[in-house]
């Protein structure tokens, strides 16, 4: 009886730890991809909610607490420009890529292609 309890407890702890490791690694993997996705989406001007919606429709959900600090950071780095504007009788903050952002995005996309090609090759070899 006791052995069963210990084994179950060990398995639960082990599963929780493994799930936590996976979540952390997934977050690390997503972090860079999200920046790339946000910059790509903002080739066309959008405000926060529509941007989140567009990303979610393409399978990349992002919560408010992650998106808005990311937008602020990209703007402070000069990759985005923003403007408060009235639309449908409500004030909304619209974002779009700056000229520097366009240039950086192109570089990032080339890098992404290179990594993707390498990774596909590595996965095929494995």
């Amino acid at each position, binding site marked *: 009886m006791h052995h069963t309890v210990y084994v179950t407890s060990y398995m639960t702890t082990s599963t929780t730890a493994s799930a936590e490791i996976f979540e952390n690694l997934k977050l690390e993997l997503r972090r860079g991809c999200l920046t790339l996705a946000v910059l790509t989406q903002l080739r066309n001007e959008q405000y926060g909610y529509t941007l989140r919606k567009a990303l979610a429709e393409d399978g990349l959900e992002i919560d408010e607490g992650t998106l*808005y600090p990311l937008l602020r950071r990209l703007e402070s780095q000069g990759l985005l420009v923003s403007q408060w504007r009235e639309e449908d009788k409500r004030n909304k903050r619209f974002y779009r890529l700056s000229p520097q952002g366009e240039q950086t995005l192109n570089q990032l996309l080339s890098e992404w292609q290179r990594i993707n090609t390498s990774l596909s090759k590595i996965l095929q070899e494995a």
Partner: protein
Amino acid sequence: MSTPKNPIELLDRYLQAVRFWLPKSQRQEDLIAELGEDLRSQIEAQEAELGRPLDQAEVSAILKRCGSPMIVAARLGPKQHLIGPTLFPIYQFVLKMVLLWILVPVFIFIIGPVNVAKAGGDWGTAVLNTIGNLWSGLFVAAGTVTLVFAILERTHAQIAIADKWDPLKLPPVRKQERKTSLAHMVCEIFFGFFGLTWLLLLPHHPGLILGPASTFLRVGPIWHTFYLPILLLAVASLLRSGITLARPHWVWFPRAAEMLQELLGLIMLNFMINAAAQAPGGDWHPFVVLADAAKNSAQYIRIAGIVNASILLSLAAAWLGVCIALAVQTWQLLRDVRERISGTGQPASLHVH
């Protein structure tokens, strides 16, 4: 607490709660306006889908999904820390040094025995006072160290630390330190344990130190004051041997612990010699006194005088010996530290396998 009258008031309450946790700035207003706009858009989209206004439970579900105000504010706000990742390892090291290797030994070996001596035999009060003082000392020391590092963090001292390093000034690769042999350590523990047992038995069996002379000699008052510090030093010595045996990879420990023990021993010897010197001159018997039955014998008086003088001379010789040992060890330690800082020594070769 009143319930909100409509879903919009619920949203306003939520935004107010998030604003409370955000640092006050223009950025705060921007973030709140943007979050509010996002949530209103979500409400609108769901209303358009259902073809009717949302009720409070439905708006509440949207807010619940967004997260608790405190967590949302933590995610939205600037990332803050008291001591950043660059300074943190140094902070941790300094804190450990100050609390564990300076403050605690000072209280155990100096302030504690002084409190016991002052309390005049009231051990309970002395121990409680020492623990109380140690507790506040730990808080004050930890607070001061944290404050200093927080100031360093704010003044961007970590940038200077991160930039001001030179690979050529790295310390030379250390020679494999000679590890103390297992047999030596086991012997040290055995004799340490034996010595401690002997010390614990002494108060009840003075014959263990005075031998046959215990028939006419008694231990002097000085030992009542210094018995506890001597006992604590013996325990510390035993612990040091145990730790050295259990943690052989702590190469710095044996020397550091030995030096600390010698320093404390030196302080105690100093106090003992001073106390003996201040004993009344006419009846100078600080270490051993005559038993009542032998007080009138001139021969016993002469023997007691010789024993007291011998013990004082032994203590003075021990004091001198410990001083020399401590000076030599300090010099060796300083030489090692200087070598590490200056980086003198041959650079390590790169091994490619």
